């Protein structure tokens, strides 16, 4: 995989790097006023800022994690889950909080290429590993991952809250080789609950994007590495 480590000294310096001047949330707000054309850039928004956490504070654990191809050097309270890190520290709010107890799948990300519930993995235990979230799937030019495109094409959602987790889980399902029939897709997507009941479209989307996902894997961004 793509788990290059950064040196701790370089990493700690990074933690003091200023945040870029936008977040996905502020971009959303801006998009609302700037009109529909701005929405096209959402899928390719790439954020590379690191945690605003002092590294010398007692009890913090130095941790290096690659997220969507970007290396982050962090000093973390051991209680921080990957989900906390993504949303609260790095402003990568595409990964959703559902039950926070490993039961719903809304927080699914790929950890070293395998789907996991990010609410159930400590960020310090991901030291040296690589994470892909929904923000890391589309090509930087905005082209969606085939699984994202298939979810839109087949209405694999209604409210959309579970969708990032569904999409990451679907990519994992295909990579693991468990998308060979509709019955197998249903069994191996059962860790992602959809309150709206869009399961029919989800199965169709996974089936349609299966072959292309087998070919390109996690995404254009990773395939080009």
């Amino acid at each position, binding site marked *: 995989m793509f788990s290059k480590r950064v040196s701790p000294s370089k990493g700690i310096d990074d933690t003091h790097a200023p945040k870029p001047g936008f977040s996905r949330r502020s971009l959303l707000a801006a998009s609302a006023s700037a009109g529909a054309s701005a929405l096209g850039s959402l899928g390719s928004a790439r954020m590379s800022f690191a945690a605003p956490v002092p590294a010398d504070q007692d009890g913090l654990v130095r941790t290096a994690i690659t997220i969507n191809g970007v290396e982050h050097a962090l000093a973390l309270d051991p209680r921080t889950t990957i989900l906390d890190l993504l949303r609260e520290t790095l402003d990568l709010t595409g990964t959703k909080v559902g039950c926070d107890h*490993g039961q719903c799948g809304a927080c699914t990300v790929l950890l070293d290429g395998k789907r996991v519930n990010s609410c159930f*993995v*400590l960020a310090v235990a991901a030291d040296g590993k690589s994470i892909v979230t929904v923000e890391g799937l589309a090509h930087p030019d905005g082209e969606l991952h085939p699984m994202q495109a298939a979810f839109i094409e087949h209405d694999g959602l209604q409210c959309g809250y579970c969708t990032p987790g569904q999409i990451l889980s679907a990519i994992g399902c295909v990579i693991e080789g468990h998308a060979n029939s509709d019955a197998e897709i249903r*069994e191996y997507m059962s*860790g992602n609950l959809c309150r709206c009941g869009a399961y029919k479209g989800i199965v169709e989307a996974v089936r349609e994007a299966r072959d292309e996902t087998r070919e390109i894997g996690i995404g254009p961004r990773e395939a080009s590495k």
Partner: protein
Amino acid sequence: MKPFRYRAPLSIGDAVKTVEPIGEGGQGGAFLAGGTTILDLMKLSVVSPPSLTDLQKLGLDEIRWNGDVVHLGARVTMAQAADHPMLKERVPVLSEALWKAASPQLRNVATLAGNVLQRTRCPYFRDNISACNKRNPGSGCSAMDGINRLLAVLGTSDHCIANYAGDFANALLLFDAEVETESRRGERTIAFDRLHVRPDDRPERETVLAQDELITGFRFTLPQWARRSHFVKVRDRESYAFALTSAAVALDMDGETVREARIGIGGAATVPWRAKEAEGFLAGKHLTESVALEAGRMAFAGATGFEHNAFKIPLGQRTVARALLETAAMDSAGTGAGSN
């Protein structure tokens, strides 16, 4: 979640040396494998260990074969074992018990040793408020007269009716497995059927493991006929749910006559459960539907039902019967039942 110290030692020796003994409030340091039980219970404040000792740098993640002897490393993930071609072919009941458990995301991180040691899903244990002899010894049992639909009917005591939630252990139990452990006092081997202990009057004690004792692997010898083995799991929904009742079955058949039967029962007992009387009854019998149902009745002969879970007794009997009949119908290559 309460603060804790995190360590990821590089050797088993260091891991068992660094885990803290039980201190104030009865909480000791804990080992961290996949984390899907302990982080869950830490978020609920049911357990608050002062430290987590992460096992991820210890290896222990291989499945090895030596003839008919299988060795499963403690940190092999549920997904890794469920998809292992040799396990699927030689002992389908193990693979099936694993892929029918939890979700793909959980199986990608949850380990075999962690799965074997997973804690009960009793809601009164997990709510951190109710009287619970397992969580707070001597406080009583809220489940006995409470909403006990999911809880145990076999192996219960006057102090606790919490069910053992796992599936894999009930299948591993069929093959007289051994558990390999290491602690500050060195290595030892424990018979798998002696690892878990029934609640009796000390429901807080769930296994014979010492607090610094780490499971490093499981070892067992597979009979050739383990290919004819199968896991039936009955649940409220078809996937991603705990068992109401389950049956793990392996059969050595001579035509339609049973030479030897092995039966593990899940969802309904306080510990991984083997139905040895029913196994003995089946030896030499022509396996008809009525014989299978009689074996199911024998398996639940000592069961005690409570207000909401008494249905598990007839359901469990029929689950055993169905598992026996479906296993007998498998061809000797180990296919024919248990596929998706």
